[in-house]
C-alpha cells in the first residue's frame, strides 16, 4: 500500500462499509461478510476437504486444508461474535466431503456452530449435506430484503452470492499482488472464496465482469486488512 494508505490507522482497513438494498454491510478483512445490525456472518466457498477429494484416485494433497480454513473462520467468529452464520454454498468440496472430515476438524466445526444459528446454503459442489452436520439447509435464503444464494443469477437484485471465487490483481509501483476480493455493484455483492486450497478467478474475466455491467467496486482481502481498489489499478492475469 502507498504512503497515503500507510498514513491511515491500520484499523481503518478492518472492514469495507457498503450498502446493498438499504442494508448496511461490512466486508471484513478476513474475507467474510457481516450484517452488523443483525449479527449475521456470511462466509462463502469454504471447500472443506478439497485436499482429500481426489484421494480415491490416488492424489494425496496435504490433508491440512480443512483445519487451516476452520482455524481462520474460528478467528473471524471469535472477533465478530455473530448470532447467525450463513455458509453460502460449496462449504464442502464434494458430497462425500463431510464424511471425510476427521474427528478433530469435525469437533472444531462443532465448536463454531455451538450456540448460534447456522444455515447451509446448497452449492453446486455440495447440493446435499448429511443431517448430522446440524444447522438449517436452504437452496437460497431471504433476509431483510436481501437474497443469499450460491450462484449469482444474471437478473437478480440485492443478491449476495459466491461461487465465482473473485480475485483481484493489483499492480502499483511495480509491485503486484493477486488476492481474493469482494466485488460489489449493479445491485449485487460477490464474496471471495474462503477455503485454503481455493484458487481465484480474476474479476476482469468476462464470467465475473459480465455480472456488473462495468459498474464494479472491488475490495481486496490482504493479510491484515481489506483494501478498496480503484478499477484502474486492476490488472488481468
Amino acid at each position, binding site marked *: 500500500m502507498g504512503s497515503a494508505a500507510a498514513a491511515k490507522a491500520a484499523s481503518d482497513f478492518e472492514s469495507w462499509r457498503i450498502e446493498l438494498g438499504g442494508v448496511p454491510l461490512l466486508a471484513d478483512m478476513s474475507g467474510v461478510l457481516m450484517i452488523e445490525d443483525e449479527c449475521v456472518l456470511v462466509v462463502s466457498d469454504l471447500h472443506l476437504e*478439497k485436499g482429500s477429494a481426489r484421494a480415491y484416485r490416488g492424489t494425496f494433497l496435504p490433508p491440512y486444508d480443512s483445519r487451516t480454513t476452520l482455524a481462520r473462520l474460528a478467528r473471524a467468529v471469535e472477533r465478530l461474535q455473530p448470532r447467525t452464520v450463513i455458509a453460502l454454498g460449496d462449504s464442502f468440496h464434494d458430497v462425500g466431503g463431510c464424511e471425510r472430515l476427521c474427528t478433530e476438524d469435525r469437533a472444531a466445526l462443532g465448536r463454531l456452530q455451538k450456540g448460534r444459528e447456522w444455515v447451509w446454503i446448497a452449492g453446486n459442489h455440495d447440493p446435499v449435506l448429511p443431517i448430522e452436520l446440524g444447522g438449517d439447509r436452504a437452496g437460497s435464503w431471504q433476509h431483510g430484503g436481501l437474497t443469499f444464494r450460491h450462484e449469482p443469477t444474471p437478473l437478480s437484485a440485492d443478491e449476495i452470492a459466491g461461487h465465482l471465487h473473485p480475485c483481484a490483481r493489483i499492480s502499483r509501483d511495480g*509491485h503486484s499482488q493477486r488476492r481474493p476480493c469482494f466485488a460489489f455493484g449493479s445491485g449485487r455483492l460477490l464474496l471471495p472464496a474462503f477455503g485454503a486450497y481455493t484458487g481465484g478467478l480474476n474479476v476482469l474475466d468476462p464470467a465475473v465482469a459480465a455480472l456488473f455491467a462495468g459498474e464494479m467496486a472491488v475490495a481486496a482481502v490482504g493479510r491484515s486488512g481489506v483494501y478498496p481498489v480503484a478499477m484502474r489499478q486492476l490488472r488481468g492475469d
Partner: protein
Amino acid sequence: MQRAIARKSPKSKVPPLLPERFADWFASRGWQPRPHQLALVEAAQARRSTLLIAPTGAGKTLAGFLPSLIDLTERPANEPRLHTLYISPLKALAVDVQRNLLRPVTEMGLPIRIETRTGDTPQGRRQRQRLIPPDILLTTPEQIALLISHCDAGRLFGSLCAIILDELHALVVNKRGDLLALGLQRLLSLAPGAIVTGLSATVARPSELQAYIVPQRPDDGFTRLADKVVLKGGAAPQIRILGADDTLPWSGHSARHAYAEIYAEIGKHRLTLIFVNTRSQAEVIFQSLWRLNEETLPIALHHGSLDVGQRRKVEAAMAAGSLRAVVATSTLDLGIDWGDVDLVIHVGAPKGASRLAQRIGRSNHRLDEPSQAILVPANRFEVMECRAALDAAKEGAQDTPPIRPGGLDVLAQHVMGTACAGPFLPEILFHEVRGASPYAALTRDQFDRVIDFVSTGGYALRAYDRYARLKPNHDGGLRIAHPNLAQQYRMNVGTIVEMPMLKVRMIGKNRRFLLRDGKPGGPSPMMGGKYLGEIEESFIEMLAPGDTFIFAGHVLRFEAIRESEAFVSRTEGVDAKVPAYAGGKFPLSTYLAARVRDMLADPNAWKALPKPVGDWLRIQKKRSVIPRADQLLVETFARRGRYYLVCYPFEGRLAHQTLGMLLTRRLDRAGARPLGFVASEYSLAIWGLEDMSAMIADGRLDIGTLFEEDMLGDDLDAWLESSNLMRRTFRFCAVIAGLIERRYPGKEKTGRQVTVSADLIYNVLREHEPRHILLEAAWADAASGLLDIARLGLFLERAKGHILHQALARVSPLAVPVLLDIGKESVPGDAAESLLRESAEDLITEAMRDG
C-alpha cells in the same frame, strides 16, 4: 583393480581375443584393434563390469560394443532376445550410435538386429519391441524407467548379457542419473548375469563412476568398484591465452577485443570450434565474426535455442567437412562425433578444469597429435582463471563435481514404478535401492517414509490410509491398489520438469475486460503486453516481486511468474538492483577458485600473467591490500554519494547471489540502508546510503557479525519466504514424486476448481508439516543447486576469524570490475555509450592513480 591396458598376454597366439571375422575386418580397414578395445573384450569374457575412461575420438563406442558384437556372432540366439542395452543421455546420440554401429555390422555381415527406442519411437514399434526385442537396443534413461514398470520386464530383460552406459560422466550429475542408478539396479536384479560397461570422459573421481555401475552393499562397510580401463590422451594439449594485452577489458563477457584475432585463427585452420558460455554470447560472437568475414568463410552457429532442424543441418555440414568454424554452447559438449576439428577456441572463463579438458578434447581426434586450444579471457579476473585452468590442464588435474546423494523425489517415482511392474517386498527393494551408489547412504527410516509417501502421501495425519495406492499382499509384499495407477504413473515418468527459459513479457497497459473467443469462463487473457525475449529461469527465481533488473536494454521491475512467463513492468530513473548475468550457468569450480586465490596471494605468480593484469594487482597491493589465500578481503569506500562494500569470496555467482540477498537484509537491519548489490563469479558489491566505513569504525556495524554463519538460519528462511525459488523447487519435486501431475502442453487444466496450485500446497505443508519428505527433498535441491547454500556455508565457516577489512578513501583496483558491472547494467541504450565510457574511464583512473 586397474588393469594395464597395454598388457600383452604371455601366450598371445592362443586363444586370440578377436575372432577371425573381426580381425579380418580391422585389417581390411587398415586398423589395429586398440588396446582398450581388446581390454573390454577380455573383461567381457571374464564377465567383469568395467569403466572405460578415454578422451574423445578413441573409438570408445566401438570398444563398448565390440564384446557384444563378438558374443552375438559366436553364439547366435535361436529366438529373439535382448542381448545388449545401450543407454545414452541424448536421443540424438542413440541415433548417431546406431548409424556408426551399422557400419561394422553390415561390412562384416553380422546377423545382428539393432534398434533405437526413444520418446519419438512410434507406439506400434515400441509394443513390438517388448514382444520381439532386437539383439541390441539403444535407448535413454526415461525409456528404461518406463520399461521396468511393465509386468513383462522380467521376460524382456532376463536375457540381458551387457548394459552399456555412454557419456556416464554427464549422466550421473543430475536427477536423471538418480533415476538411471535405480533403474540399473532393477535391471541387474532381473538379469544377474549381465555386466555393465561405463564409457566416460576423464573425471576427478573415477571411483564414483566405478561404484555407480556395480551393486553396492553398504553394510559391508566398503564401496564396491568396477574394474577400470584408462586411456590417457596422447600428447599434452597445446594451449595458449589470447588477447591479453592493453586492450584487455576490465569487466564484461563479450571478449570483443579479441574477435579479429579469433577470425585470423579460423583462417589458419581446417575446422575451428568456438565454445562460449551462453547463448547470447554465441549470438554476439557469431554476428561479429560475420562482420569481419571478408573471405566469407563458412562459419555456423549451434546452440540450444535454435530450431532442431537447423542444428542437425550444422552437424551434418561439420561432419561433411564443409564448415570452417562453428560457434557453440554446451549443446556440442556431448559425444557425437562431428568431423575433423583441429582448433578449439574457448571464449570466456572455462569455469572448471575438467570442463575445459572435455571441450579441448573436441579437437584433433588422432590421439598421438596434441590438441590445439586457445583461451580467450574476456576480462582481468578471467585472465587469472584462464591461467589457473591452463596450469590445471598441463597437470591433468580434474574437478568434476562430486555425485550428490540421490533425490528422495526420484526414489518415490522409482518405488511407484516398481510397484506397477508387480508386487514387491519392501525389505528386498530397500537392499536393491541401496545397491545404487547415490542411495548407498539411504537410511531405512528415509526409505520407509518414501514408501509411506507413495502409499498414502506420508502425512502425520493419517487421512488417506483407506485410499492407499499400495496394498499389502498376504506375504508382506506391496502391490498397487488399482491398474489405473500404473497408467497414470507412465504418463508422469521422468525427472525433466525444468522450464529453463522463461519468456519475459511486459504487463499490458489498460488490459481489462478483455474477451478471448468471446466466451465467458474461457481461458482468461494473460496480462501480457510486449514480448521482450527469454531469460534463464534460475535468474528470475532469485527475484522477489519489486526487484529491478536489466534486460533487453531496459531497467525492468519483476512482477510475477505465470506459467512459463515472467511479467515485468518498466521503471524509470532507478538503478537495477540485480543485474542480468551475462556469464554461464556453471559456477566457477571450487578447485579453480582455490587456484585463483593462491595466484592472487602470491606476487611471484603474477609474473606469469600479462602485464596489464600484473600492474593491476601491484596497484591493488599499494592502494588497498592483497589478501592471503585464506583471508576474505572486505573493502568499504564512498563514491559519488553512495557507499560501497565489496568482498572477494571467489565462490561463484550462485553462492555470491545468495550471499548478496542475505547481507542486504542484514545491512538493512543494521541501518546501512542498502540499495542494491551485484554479484560476479569472483566478488560481491553492495551499495547503500549510509557510510559503512564509519559504521564499522564506531561499532554500529561489526564485520565479523555481518558474515556470521547464522545468516543461513532465520535470514535465509525469511528470504526464502518471499522468493519464488523454494516454491518452484518444491513444484519440481512434487511433480517428480507424483504428488502433482505433469502439465503437458495443450493439456493444461484450467478453471479454478480442478487444480490446487503448488504454491497453496507448499504454504499449507510448510505450516502443518514442515518435516514432510517432499520439503526435505526440495530443500536438498535448493541447497546444492540454485542457492548453492552448501558452498556458501563452507565459505562462511572458512571466513570466520579471517576477515580482512579495509576502509578506503576511494575505489580499489580490485573492485573496479564488479563496479563496472553496476555502471554497465544501469545505463542502458546506445545513446548512453559515451557517457558510460567516460564514467568507466573515471572509475579506472580513480582506482589506478597514484597518491
